[in-house]
């Protein structure tokens, strides 16, 4: 199925319902009228690039591209100017829309148009030619550049059929009440930002955009706008919880708060549950290449984990929940054979929403399986526990060691706010384990005591040879820990001079 069908569903199903709010409220019919007018400007453009912050009318360019049958390419405005130019150059002939701040940086090297100007110039007038809806659901709908922490950014392709399979498989059309509103604070160039926009429009929920995140602004907007749903990345959740400092959030309208995109410290989830007592929490796991979410830990799981005395049920707070019923999974060992139930291995997934494709070609195997490169185990009840990226595994003296296992022990210490464990080259062991910890506010970290804790809980071979205390750790702006940067810095500072 094609996104243009969804656009038509929104046009007729939410004709009179307010879905967006810019200077004036926009109904479903008005949103689609603008998208049709926008599509008419794309006759000669092979793609629509947007590089800028979230915008209250972001669905207009996305839908315009869908109706015109060309890809929507949201580019990270936080990148270096040179990198942005390079990514735009990969879409020759595209219409490039931007916001004011980014436009200043890109001119005069690149021909760009302000999104605001495009929206007002192309506001629908009577007799505006209506673009015929595109039909071929094998067309590329959205191109997302992966964060590229190790190499040049890769262009992940999501075709219409992947996105529609995800949306129709997970969201009930028109299931939201007229009073519901979602606060979107995830940037447009992240798969969660795109999924956030689309899922909530399918449900018929009003979208409220937070242009730049701060915990104060986020909480104020939730209270002022009567926000009922929101999705945040882990760094945002941590900042909200730390900002509240143990006080209740006083956000009684918030029914659902979902979080995902990277690992969240259990401490943060527990504090968040306490601060938002009437809110249902959802942890979502997914990748760009899987067209967003493939596993969810729902509100009941969160509540049960907090209330239960059963360690297995309590431990689920650290899981990514259960796979969607529309997704198949297989956990395989290093030889590609399925592991015994409950054992760790590499997660492979398959399903209609799984794109697994880059501009350079598909990476699905002959049977349609996508290798997530995440090491996981799935317990007897179907809960998925993510250990970490396979590429981050430390091999010390022939033993495979997952950084997450050691980090979890370090994070249990009340003096530790953040932890990152990496393997550094070692002549004797191949790799040795080094941990970097960030102290919690005002706390003093006793690194020897921490090492002893790991030795007691795990074993000697998993005890970091060295623990370094740092004021902060590097993250991507959506909260992913940049392990390679940490390892690179450590290797450099450890080089004997």
């Amino acid at each position, binding site marked *: 199925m094609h996104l243009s*069908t969804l656009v038509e569903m929104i046009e007729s199903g939410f004709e009179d319902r307010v879905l967006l709010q810019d200077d004036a409220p926009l109904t479903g019919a008005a949103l689609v009228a603008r998208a049709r007018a926008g599509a008419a400007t794309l006759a000669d453009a092979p793609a629509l690039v947007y590089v800028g912050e979230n915008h209250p009318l972001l669905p207009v360019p996305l839908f315009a591209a869908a109706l015109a049958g060309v890809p929507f390419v949201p580019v990270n405005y936080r990148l270096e100017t040179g990198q942005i130019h390079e990514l735009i150059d990969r879409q020759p002939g595209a219409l490039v829309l931007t916001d004011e701040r980014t436009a200043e940086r890109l001119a005069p090297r690149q021909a760009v148009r302000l999104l605001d100007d495009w929206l007002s110039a192309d506001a629908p007038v009577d007799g505006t030619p209506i673009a015929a809806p595109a039909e071929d659901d094998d067309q590329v709908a959205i191109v997302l550049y992966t964060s590229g922490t190790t190499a040049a950014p890769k262009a992940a392709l999501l075709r219409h059929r992947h996105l529609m399979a995800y949306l129709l498989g997970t969201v009930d059309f028109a299931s939201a009440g007229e009073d519901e509103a979602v606060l979107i604070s995830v940037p447009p160039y992240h798969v969660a930002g795109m999924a956030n926009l689309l899922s909530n429009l399918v449900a018929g929920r009003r979208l409220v955009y937070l242009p730049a995140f701060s915990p104060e602004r986020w909480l104020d907007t939730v209270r002022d706008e009567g926000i009922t749903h929101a999705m945040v990345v882990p760094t945002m959740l941590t900042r909200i919880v730390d900002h509240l400092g143990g006080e209740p959030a006083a956000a009684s309208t918030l029914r659902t708060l979902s979080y995902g995109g990277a690992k969240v410290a259990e401490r943060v989830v527990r504090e968040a549950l306490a601060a938002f007592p009437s809110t249902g929490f959802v942890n979502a796991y997914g990748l760009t290449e899987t067209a967003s979410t493939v596993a969810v830990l729902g509100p009941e799981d969160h509540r049960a984990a907090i209330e239960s005395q059963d360690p297995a049920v309590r431990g689920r707070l650290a899981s990514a929940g259960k796979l969607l019923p529309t997704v198949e999974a297989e956990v395989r060992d290093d030889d590609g054979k399925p592991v015994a139930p409950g054992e760790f291995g590499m997660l492979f997934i398959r399903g209609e929403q799984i794109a697994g494709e880059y501009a350079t070609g598909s990476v699905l195997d002959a049977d349609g399986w996508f290798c997530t490169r995440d090491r996981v185990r799935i317990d007897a009840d179907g809960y998925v526990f993510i250990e970490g990226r396979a590429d981050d595994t430390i091999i010390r003296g022939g033993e495979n060691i997952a950084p997450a296992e050691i980090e979890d022990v370090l994070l249990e210490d009340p003096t530790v706010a953040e932890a990152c464990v990496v393997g550094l080259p070692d002549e004797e062991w191949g790799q040795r384990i080094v941990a970097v910890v960030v102290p919690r506010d005002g706390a003093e970290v006793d690194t020897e005591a921490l090492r002893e804790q790991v030795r007691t809980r795990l074993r000697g071979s998993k005890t970091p040879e060295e623990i370094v205390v740092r004021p902060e750790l590097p993250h991507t702006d959506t909260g992913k820990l940049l392990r390679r940067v940490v390892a690179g810095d450590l290797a450099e500072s450890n080089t004997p001079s």
Partner: protein
Amino acid sequence: MSRTLKAGSRLFSLACTTEVIVVKAPAEEVELTIGGVAPADSVDARPESPAVADGHEGPSVVGKRYVDEAGTIEVLCTKSGAGAVALNGVLLGIKDAKPLPSSD
């Protein structure tokens, strides 16, 4: 009137205001009706005073999915109306689905 349906096709009732989209289509030609009348492929074709045939009362409710017992067809209602969707003369039933928590 028999026809081949396609996933993604939108159908507009000529007997009421119901609109559906085909989510899963049967492989073979079928006779599909909404409110007892074969639907149109566009909204322009609607008659002035539509009427639902006896035995084909719904209502069809927006957001609900309708399926046959054999699971050969699934349609999603995108606009509510008085008539029911029927496959080869047999009314479709509501698909029972446990909603997933909103993950985004």
